[in-house]
């Protein structure tokens, strides 16, 4: 039996594999190639900004047919890392950039706050900053020690790499290694679901997300911080102490459809979307 040599088959198959791989290399490149408004924009990062950018992206897609905006979560650190490595056209970072990220370009699109949440059935209406810090350090572990019922406190913390954790820890003077958590969650929605499902839980999320979810029926209560109630209006007026800017970051000065999207996100035309999700539009 004369069979074609196996070597020939291997060469043919490898050739097919390489041939398939080459065209996909130029797939999702939004910021360089687009002279006409078409292409795909990859936006990854903070789970706080993701719903807002999804809505802005949809409105942008309606104005620029041929453009697709794809949004993924993963945390602010992922947004910065992906932007730097070119895996995303735009990164979402829900805090100010630190020194290691000084090489990136940041564009603020809205302001938000971080608030502590408990279940709506929890009788405790407010906690002082020192009490919250003590709860997270594990020094206070029962609600009756802060005026509530006799139940163990379920401490909900965010996973590392989330800017909400960094801002929370910085304000309350905690190192992330000092925090004693009972449950660690990834994005804002998982945090709200966890607290809403446990009457003895305490957690922290973005004010915008929490206010929106509470107004749409989630059984949670937002606690004040520093004596100021956790409301979007107080973030806007600057009275609320734990606030942060929501940023879009790019590695190089943006161009093409990435620049158009960023300009659009910073324009007054999307202020209604920002307010609908309970964030604070920034004055231009």
């Amino acid at each position: 039996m004369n069979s074609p040599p196996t070597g020939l088959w291997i060469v043919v198959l490898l050739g097919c594999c390489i041939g398939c791989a080459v065209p996909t290399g130029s797939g999702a490149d939004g910021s360089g190639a687009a002279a006409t408004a078409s292409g795909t924009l990859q936006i990854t990062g903070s789970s706080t900004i993701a719903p807002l950018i999804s809505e802005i992206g949809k409105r942008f897609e309606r104005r620029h047919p041929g453009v697709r905006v794809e949004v993924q979560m993963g945390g602010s650190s992922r947004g910065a890392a992906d932007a730097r490595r070119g895996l995303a056209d735009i990164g979402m970072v829900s805090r100010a950039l630190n020194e290691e990220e000084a090489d990136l370009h940041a564009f603020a699109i809205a302001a938000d706050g971080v608030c502590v949440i408990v279940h709506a059935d929890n009788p405790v209406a407010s906690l002082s900053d020192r009490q919250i810090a003590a709860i997270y350090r594990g020094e206070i572990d029962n609600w009756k020690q802060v005026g509530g019922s006799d139940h163990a406190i379920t401490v909900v913390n965010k996973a590392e790499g989330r800017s909400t954790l960094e801002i929370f820890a910085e304000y309350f003077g905690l190192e992330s290694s000092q925090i004693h958590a009972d449950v660690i969650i990834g994005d804002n929605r998982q945090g709200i679901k966890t607290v809403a499902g446990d009457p003895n839980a305490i957690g922290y999320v973005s004010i915008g997300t929490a206010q929106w979810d509470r107004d749409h029926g989630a059984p949670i209560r937002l606690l004040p911080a520093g004596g100021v109630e956790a409301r979007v209006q107080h973030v806007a007026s600057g009275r609320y102490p734990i606030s942060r800017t929501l940023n879009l970051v790019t590695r190089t000065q943006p161009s093409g459809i990435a620049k158009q999207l960023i300009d659009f996100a910073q324009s007054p035309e999307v202020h209604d979307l920002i307010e609908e999700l309970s964030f604070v539009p920034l004055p231009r």
Partner: protein
Amino acid sequence: MSRFRVDDWVGGILRSLSLVACVLVGSIAGFLVLESLPALRTLGPRLITDSQWYPAADATGGSFGLLPMIVGTLAVTAGAVLLAAPAGVASAVFCQFYAPRWVAAWYRKLIELLAGIPSVVYGFWGLVVLAPQVARLHPPGFNLLTGMLIVGLMILPTVMLVVEAALAAVPRSYIVGAAALGLGRWSIVRNIVLPEARGGIITGVVLGMARAVGETMAVVMVCGNVVRVPRGLFDPVRTLTANIALEMGYALSIHRSALFASGLLLLVMAAGMILALEWVQRQSVGQGAG
């Protein structure tokens, strides 16, 4: 004459496709080893014996101890297998030997449906339904026990379907002969069928175990994800897979390398299980069925 030519071409295609599969698996393993080398070189055996995992601690450059996650993976897998193996074997025996034909058919379809549900759906169900129920025993409900229950439920269909195939492969003549000798139904199952199908039962259990080790989404949602060696069923755990899922998106340099090393560890565990399965099957070949 032309029949031989077709045979050669088909043989050649199959040979090269198999080679492509080998090359892919080999390159994944090689890539894992390459990316883990920095962490393995810098940290050495401390990577698996340390119990502190603080990748972002600036003062010390970060501590990378995988021990809590390794214990988490092993605990969840062991618990899941302990729950799913007896239940799977019992379900298969019920389906093959005790259920009326129409009940068996519907039961089998139900199990096949369970096998097809995506793991993230199991995780969501666990988060919203199972965890609050476990919370009534011991709040909060995000702990090792919930993880074991969810993963056990997920691997039950795998175990049951493979074991049932093994039971069905037992030669009918054995069963008929045993019945002719006057053995009762349970006697036949226990003394003839189960020993004969032993290889297949172990295959099913090991496949279930391999799936349990690799489970990610469901575990991230219900296990609590706290990096701590669990001291009891109601402590939260983080598995190796959940660790990779939560942190791979943004990890850099040594942190990223340590995560790849944990991926390599998972690969080694899976390979170990397959090799153990091979060995067991070789042992039971002497007895007849595989």
